[in-house]
């Protein structure tokens, strides 16, 4: 029960006045970010990350910084549900499945019930995710302390192959997008030999492409351009929510306990293996529709159809931090941005964090419990306020969002060149999204590219260039084998279909 005592220690860190204040600030900012088109969890955190540079220099500041940023993430997860239900606009990709039943409910005048169900299920999903992190992550970290370069490379390989095997996009598009990320990561100074690569003699490329700029462009500008196609006005249902509706919905929710549990299980699994929140929410919705006795009514406004995707999305979003903390491999784009934050603050994510930075890790985990409670309170009480933000006309809010993105891109390196790159990434994000090139593996590859390459080269130095080192023992062999299986899964699945 070492976890429990560490967790109590963490609560004492997270409950300090500054950290509690940051928690609420983060949640409120996060919900706003989640509600606004073009600002989501990943790029919201990316824009605010540079502001934490000085905060992280103070004693205990790294913990405060991660609490602020992770609470923005929880807030954004909650915020996505608001726009899906009231406006039929998924603020985040993982809330697309919430629109299927959430919006019809709102049209029937049951917006309050849909919102309450969504927030409560989100909270439940996140709570399960945090419990999993609390008890599983020390074990995983302990286990990973034994890892050498080949093990780490095989974990990276597994992460990236999982994208190819489990993505619903065309495998070669996933591959192209991912490898583009690795290529962008390689630009700049080679971390091993110090040679300049792919800079073509330009000054601006010396430091390489920063993944924060890529995230702001791809998810921010790209998203705004996509939203524009739908037109300039948002039409939404009114957000009436009061104590009576909340209590009535809470009475109804226990009926769907099985759906919630299934959703949470799917979510945790998909969050830990890098599938992510989006497929988890769709999967959970599909499973719930299949097993519910009202399955044929799904899509016309079933509360159960809101419970299923929201529970899964939050469970996945939360548990995506488990591999990020224990192995240094993020399970989602937002987790990747948080990982980038740890690196910038001078922390080395991975198993050693649990040994050397106990305060940081357990302060963060404790803040996940508190942050989600704070989040539930904030969203239940302030929904009308947040919905009002979406009623600000697009011609006012769109340029302000672009300006915020530009400031965010500039502050990463204090370079105007990054602001230009943001627009380039924005156009790429628009085209990629429309053509079904997934963005998550691209971002993860930019973040992890250097580390993956370094672990590969270290392994090769150990084995004198012998590739069999990736099958040298049971552990690394299993990881590599699983990775290859996932990589070739689309081909295997195709062959199976042909044979039938």
């Amino acid at each position, binding site marked *: 029960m070492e976890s429990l005592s560490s967790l109590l220690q963490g609560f004492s860190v997270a409950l300090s006045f500054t950290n509690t204040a940051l928690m609420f600030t983060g949640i409120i900012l996060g919900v706003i970010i989640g509600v606004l088109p073009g600002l989501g969890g990943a790029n919201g955190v990316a824009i605010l990350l540079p502001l934490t540079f000085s905060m992280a220099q103070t004693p205990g500041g790294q913990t405060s910084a991660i609490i602020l940023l992770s609470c923005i993430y929880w807030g954004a997860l909650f915020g996505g549900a608001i726009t899906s239900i009231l406006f039929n606009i998924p603020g985040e990709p993982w809330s697309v499945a919430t629109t299927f039943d959430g919006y019809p409910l709102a049209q029937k005048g049951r917006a309050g019930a849909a919102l309450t169900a969504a927030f409560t299920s989100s909270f439940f999903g996140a709570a399960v995710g945090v419990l999993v992190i609390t008890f599983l992550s020390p074990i995983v970290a302990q286990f990973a302390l034994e890892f050498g370069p080949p093990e780490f490379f095989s974990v990276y390989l597994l992460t990236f192959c999982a994208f190819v095997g489990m993505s619903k996009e065309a495998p070669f598009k996933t591959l*192209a997008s991912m490898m*583009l990320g690795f*290529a962008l990561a390689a630009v700049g100074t080679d971390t091993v030999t110090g040679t300049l690569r792919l800079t073509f003699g330009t000054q601006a490329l010396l430091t390489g492409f920063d993944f924060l700029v890529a995230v702001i462009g791809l998810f921010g500008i790209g998203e*705004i351009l996509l939203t*524009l196609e739908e037109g300039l006005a948002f039409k939404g249902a009114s957000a009436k929510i009061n104590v009576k509706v909340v209590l009535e919905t809470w009475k109804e929710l226990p009926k769907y306990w099985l759906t919630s549990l299934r959703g949470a299980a799917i979510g945790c699994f998909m969050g830990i293996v890098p599938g992510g929140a989006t497929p988890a929410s769709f999967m959970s919705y599909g499973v719930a529709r299949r097993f519910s006795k009202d399955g044929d009514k799904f899509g016309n406004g079933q509360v159960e159809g809101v419970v299923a995707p929201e529970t899964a999305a939050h469970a996945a979003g939360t548990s995506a931090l488990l591999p990020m903390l224990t192995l240094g491999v993020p399970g989602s784009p937002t987790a990747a941005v948080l990982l980038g934050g740890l690196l910038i603050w001078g922390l080395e994510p991975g198993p050693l964090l649990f040994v050397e930075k106990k305060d940081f890790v357990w302060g963060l985990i404790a803040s996940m419990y508190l942050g989600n409670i704070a989040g539930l309170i904030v969203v239940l009480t302030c929904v009308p306020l947040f919905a009002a933000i979406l009623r600000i006309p697009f011609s006012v809010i769109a340029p302000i969002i672009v*300006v915020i993105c530009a*400031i965010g891109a500039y502050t990463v390196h204090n370079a105007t060149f990054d602001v230009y790159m943001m627009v380039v990434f924005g156009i790429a994000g628009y085209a990629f999204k429309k*053509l079904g090139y997934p963005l998550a593996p691209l971002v993860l590859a930019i973040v992890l590219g250097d580390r993956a390459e370094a672990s590969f080269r270290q392994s090769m130095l150990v084995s004198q260039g012998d590739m069999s080192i990736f099958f040298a023992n049971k552990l690394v062999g299993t990881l590599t084998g699983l990775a290859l299986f996932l990589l070739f899964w689309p081909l295997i699945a195709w062959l199976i279909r042909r044979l039938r």
Partner: protein
Amino acid sequence: MSDASETRPALRYKTAELAVAGFLFVLGAIVMADSWRLGARWAADGPQTGYFPFYVGLIVCISSAINFVRGLLIAKDKNRAFVEVGQFKLVLSVLLPSIVYVVLVGWLGIYVASIIYIAFFMRWLGGYAWWKVIAVSVGTNAFFYFTFEKWFQVPLPKGPVESLLGLG
């Protein structure tokens, strides 16, 4: 948007698929070429600097070639509109000013450029009264100025106007 000329496709999927796949192929080829120049083989002490990116570039090229061929195979009846004329106009109405905006950031600094950008949007796309336009554009940037320069002590790019006002 019921006007037929507005829903006419500005660009079809096939064209878009081919363009993106072709572009990525060229990028992959550039990566391969530069990595080869640096050395992408095995040296006595393991892989050379260009080894990893060379194969990354190779995979980009191979996948893009396959995506290109798959794009060519899109049947005529399945070749939906990638973007309709009306939608494309809306997208360009934001994209083009944004490109001008980031260029202006380099010349005028971020605050003045942002004031012009927000004002342009509200006036030409939103049709707001001038006093509202000025209130929002100047107010937002004053807020950003105090938040970043004073509170977080993060200096943002400034241009000639700020130095004239003695703020730079």
